[in-house]
């Protein structure tokens, strides 16, 4: 059996699903609840929902929408976007999400993760890194849906996340987002070799070959993608899709 989780990352904007390119130019994909039903049928390993405007609009998660989504999902789900308090985390779990994803709040409130871990355990708290490559080829961390640079180094930030107790790290290459040009394997390798928790590769996947490379060449424990699961063909026609179990079992460990 293949154990490598293959995870669709679905971006929420308002009540709809969108897909971005390098965190910009959101294209409308469809209704999130309908998409969850399709991924149920296709037996997706796990779903990640990210509300990409919650932080910039300085609001919390849309609990009503999340309740509707969770009501349809019979697979594991994680949510990220606009989380700033333990109370919000509690509500998201109660709705039926197993994991919350903390990105921006890691920088603004270093105590949040530690507090959440002592109540909900490491396995429920996921750290997410949005990473951009500078013109000198160095990695820099960004927050607030890619808007702000963070002064901390990748290495130091990873150490801090692990110390605070996250149970998993999603590493998202901003420059690859929506481009389907392959994962940033060097970045993923740098992260997976620095931490002992599972690492989820994200940003740029265009095929199962990319999944295989992320796992074998870069040490990822799980692979995530957006465009790959919502578009088909060279003209990016919207169609929710997911590889068959047999196909995945053949290629992935």
């Amino acid at each position, binding site marked *: *059996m293949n*154990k*490598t*989780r293959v995870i669709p990352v679905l971006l929420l904007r308002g009540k709809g699903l969108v897909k971005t390119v390098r965190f910009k130019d959101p294209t409308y994909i469809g209704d999130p609840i309908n998409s969850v039903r399709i991924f*149920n049928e296709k*037996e997706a*390993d*796990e779903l990640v929902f990210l509300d990409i405007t919650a932080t910039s609009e300085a609001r919390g998660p849309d609990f009503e929408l999340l*309740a509707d989504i*969770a*009501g349809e*999902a*019979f*697979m*594991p*789900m994680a949510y990220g976007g606009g989380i700033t308090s333990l109370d919000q985390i509690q509500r998201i*779990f*109660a*709705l*039926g*999400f*197993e*994991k919350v994803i903390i990105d921006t709040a890691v920088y603004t409130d270093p105590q949040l993760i530690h507090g959440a*871990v*002592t*109540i*909900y*355990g*490491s*396995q*429920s708290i996921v750290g997410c890194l949005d990473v951009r490559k500078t013109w000198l080829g160095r990695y820099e961390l960004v927050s607030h849906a890619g808007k702000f640079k963070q002064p901390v180094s990748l290495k130091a930030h990873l150490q801090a996340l692990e110390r605070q107790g996250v*149970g*998993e790290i999603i590493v998202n290459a901003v420059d690859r987002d929506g481009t389907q040009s392959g994962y940033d394997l060097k970045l993923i390798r740098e992260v997976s070799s620095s931490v*002992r*928790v*599972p*690492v989820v590769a994200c940003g740029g996947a265009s095929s199962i070959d990319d999944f295989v490379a992320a796992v074998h060449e870069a040490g990822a*424990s*799980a692979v995530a993608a957006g465009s790959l699961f919502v578009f088909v063909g060279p003209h990016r026609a919207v169609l929710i899709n997911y590889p068959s*179990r047999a196909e995945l079992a053949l290629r992935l460990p």
Partner: protein
Amino acid sequence: MIVIVDYGVGNLSSIVNMLRKAGGDVAVSRDPATIIAADKLLLPGIGHFDHGMKMLNQSGLREALDRFALDIRRPVLGICLGAQIMGKSSEEGVMVGLGWLDITCHRFDVAPGIRVPHMGWNQIVKKRPSPLLDTMSDDARFYFAHSYRMSCAQSADVLATAKHGSSFVCAVQRGNIMGTQFHPEKSLRHGFALMKSFVELKHT
């Protein structure tokens, strides 16, 4: 009626959804009388061992739960932390568990290629027959998310094992008391089959 014990811990809605889909007559309750009167109990739980036990002790449900499991002896199913707290203790904390089963919980060792938490889908190996797992299909896989594993003092309590580095106990049963480390409520059709078995489980 299957009563899901609401002691303030766990993903209750997911469990309600899956049990209902499996045909269960389900209620969520934090009322001792409702719990005592249930046909079956489901003990949920996600999170830190001490937080779980603290919430359970504070809930005022402890006596009703002990009576249901140990005296009335109708079926009880614990999921994830809900299964772990049926045991005696965990390395995760210092609190004393419910002590219904002779189980202690230990942290997974990090080893080359073995990351902790154990996060994701895994196959399980049945160790003895049980109505809970007998309908399991050959391609069955279940979703796990945990850093601590159960260890049974009595091997007869072990229902199934899984492998993460080394083999560990992932389902337990002693009489009416059952537990799974994995999340049937989040394991698609495989979890559905298990929940259906629990719903259809006969008891006296």
